């Protein structure tokens, strides 16, 4: 399954390891900032993996959009909400075990299903990068409608985000929040 005679396997394995470890940090770290940085690692690893899988454009989009923009947003969020930046024992709730069991069984099941069905399919595209031009053709040709729609979604999200987070917004129906 894993042919370690090929260098690409080594690269991929290392990237996978990075992703796994960073992902683990994201969900277990007691420090919020560390968690966010863990996500950076995971995303960077993913970008690398995409490069291996010859999806250059997506890889760079990932780096630019996610690591560049989204993560910054997250850090802002963490700081504004004054989340405890240091060590925080209380970051996890008391459903850890159940969550772990659920996630674990999900992992076992999906990997079993995936390996059972696609385990031996070869990755043909390695070393044959998809041309960004082709992607652009598709995106602005066949998928132009969804593309436009997505831009609307983004716009709506933008406006929505501003509206919701507006400082002078009247605190929405305080009476409704049951206390």
């Amino acid at each position: 399954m894993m042919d370690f005679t090929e260098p690409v396997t080594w690269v991929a394995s290392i990237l996978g390891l990075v992703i796994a470890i960073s992902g683990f940090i994201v969900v277990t770290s007691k420090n919020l900032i560390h968690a966010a940085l863990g996500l950076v690692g995971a995303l960077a690893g993913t970008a690398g993996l995409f490069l291996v899988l010859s999806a250059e454009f997506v890889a760079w989009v990932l780096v630019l959009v996610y690591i560049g923009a989204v993560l910054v947003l997250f850090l802002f969020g963490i700081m504004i909400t004054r989340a405890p930046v240091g060590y925080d024992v209380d970051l996890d709730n008391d459903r850890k075990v159940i969550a772990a069991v659920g996630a674990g069984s999900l992992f076992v099941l999906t990997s079993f299903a995936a390996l059972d069905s696609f385990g031996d399919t070869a990755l043909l595209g390695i070393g044959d990068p998809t041309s960004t031009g082709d992607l652009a053709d598709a995106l602005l040709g066949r998928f132009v409608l969804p593309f436009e729609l997505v831009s609307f979604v983004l716009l709506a999200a933008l406006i929505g985000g501003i509206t919701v987070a507006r400082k002078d917004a009247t605190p929405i129906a305080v009476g409704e929040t049951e206390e």
Partner: protein
Amino acid sequence: MTNLFLALASEGEKAVEFGSGGQLQEWAWLILVAPFVAYVLILAYGKKLKYEGGEIAVGMMAFVFGYGLLLWVDTIRNHTVFEKSIEIGRVGNGMVFEWGWVVDGLSSMMYFVVGTVGLLVFTYALGYMKGERRNTFFYASFSLFAGAMLVLVASANLAQLIVGWELVGVASYLLIGHYWEDKANSSAGMKAFFTNKVADVGLIVGALALSVSVGSFRIKDILEVATTNGDSLNAPYFGSTVAVAGALLLFFGAMGKSAQFPLHIWLPDAMAGPTPVSALMHAATMVTAGIYLMARMFPLYQEMATAARPIMIAVGAATLFLTGLIALVQDDIKKVLAYSTVSQLGYMMVAIAAGGYTAALFHLFTHAFFKALLFLGAGSVIHGVHSNNMSDMGGLRKYMPRTFWTFIIGSGALAGIIPLAGFFSKDEILGTLDYEGYTAVLWIAIAGAFVTAFYMTRAVALTFFGSYKGHGHPHESEGLMTVPLMILAGFSVVAGAVNMAGFKFGETIVLRYTGFTEWLATRDFSPLGDHHPEALEWGLALYGTAAAVGGIAIGWMLFSKDAETQEARDRLTIPVLYPILRAKYYLDDVALGLVGVIKGPAARFVDWTNTYIFDTIVNSFGFAAGWLGKVVYNVADQGIIDGIFNGSAGVASVAGGWLRKIQTGKIQQYAGALVIGAVALVVGFVIFNSN
């Protein structure tokens, strides 16, 4: 392409006709619809009218009477047999539900009886009910009552018969409980409905058994199969077992409506309703339904279900004698008449079970008039003295002469005094019993005649003779009430003429007229197997008359003079039987006990199982799941010691948290449930995929 209208109008055969008939018969459905139209009209406009809707009801009954008379005359002249059915739905290819109407001797006789008695009783009610509560509703229900009975007697199939049958029950429930502010009255209504409903189980199961086996609800088809031993139609399921079982079940249904022992217990209580209701119920509608059903299905009992006859005769004989005895000890004048009705219904049932088709119907016919007369007379008396109890009456013949004389005629007819109507019909029953060889039953019937005469004399003596014991001033009723009484009295005198056996003097027979027998026999199934002597049998007539006269004589001796208290006199008369008769053979107590057990312990037990067993199982599942989660958490997270400690802190406290917990409003728990669901789905896919 069959659209809605076509589908509603014309799938399969739409309307089927049998027999012959002209426009008169074609339009006979009008008399079935008229009461229901009246029902709606009275509810809608009744309040604004002078008699609060009574006019509409009387007008409707006048129409029914007129049309019924026309039909009867036509039937007598042309011996018409007409039947028309309109399909209202079908199941599969075979069973068809229909509304239909029959015009033959039997049903037109019933139309006539219902129309005549109904018209007179409705008119009487205009006077009797004046100033009472909720008259609009009363007249509406009254119309419904008559309409239901007409639907019943007109039905060409058993399904429609059941419809009319139960509608009669509901209308009686409404009318008996008319003064429902008093719980006793609404309970009486419920008792009537409930007893009838028990009997209806028999009717429904019996009707289904017969109809499904034959493959048709039409009475005509069922009887055809029954009379030809199942050969004429393709009815492979029909056999003597089904025939006898079905016949007995139908009889059970008839026992309820026609108040046969021991299902008669509702009828005396039904006196809680206004008197016109009692009159109509006892004379023309409701109680005659059972007898009518037996008559309608007569060929079945005659041919294939002869095995059912002994049971029917036994029940009828028990009814006619035992309930007559109870009438002896009643103080309420209406209850005396009620038990008398039950007893007379016993006569009819015995007759029809013995094979006397015409005899039973003849008695039904005459009884309708004189019993309506008696009830209306009793109502008039009650109206005059404002009490139901005979201990509050006495000496009324001076105050209410018209009521008195008509009541005397009615009593005489009931007792079977020649030449009043009751004599002829009772004699015909005795003749049938004699001919068919039921000697024991014959003697019971003669003894019953004695009892009948006895209690009627008692009632007349206590009400109209002696001295007045009530309060206030008794007065004769108004014309709206007394005119119907006189008309009914006229009928009670002459109704016997429709079927006179004739008097034989030497070789000459005079006054023989058997038209009634011929009209009733106009169906295809004649001969109906009943026996008609060539003339009145002097011997039997003598026994019957002797019993009646004896009853009157003894009754007169005992009751014509005042006594100190009513109870003392009754106890003296019949010392041993008195307590058991007062208790009505304890049947009411048995029934009440049974209902009590069902309504009390049985129902509570079922409810208990629901709350404490089924609910607890369900709740336990829920709590157990919550508890399990907690235990897993404790074991894995808090160490086993802690877990045991927490677990032993009581399942209840843990479980208590669960209910609230599941509704935490915490998104993550909801998300968790989602994940679990997704996992389950994947498991399903994996398992089935690997198959």
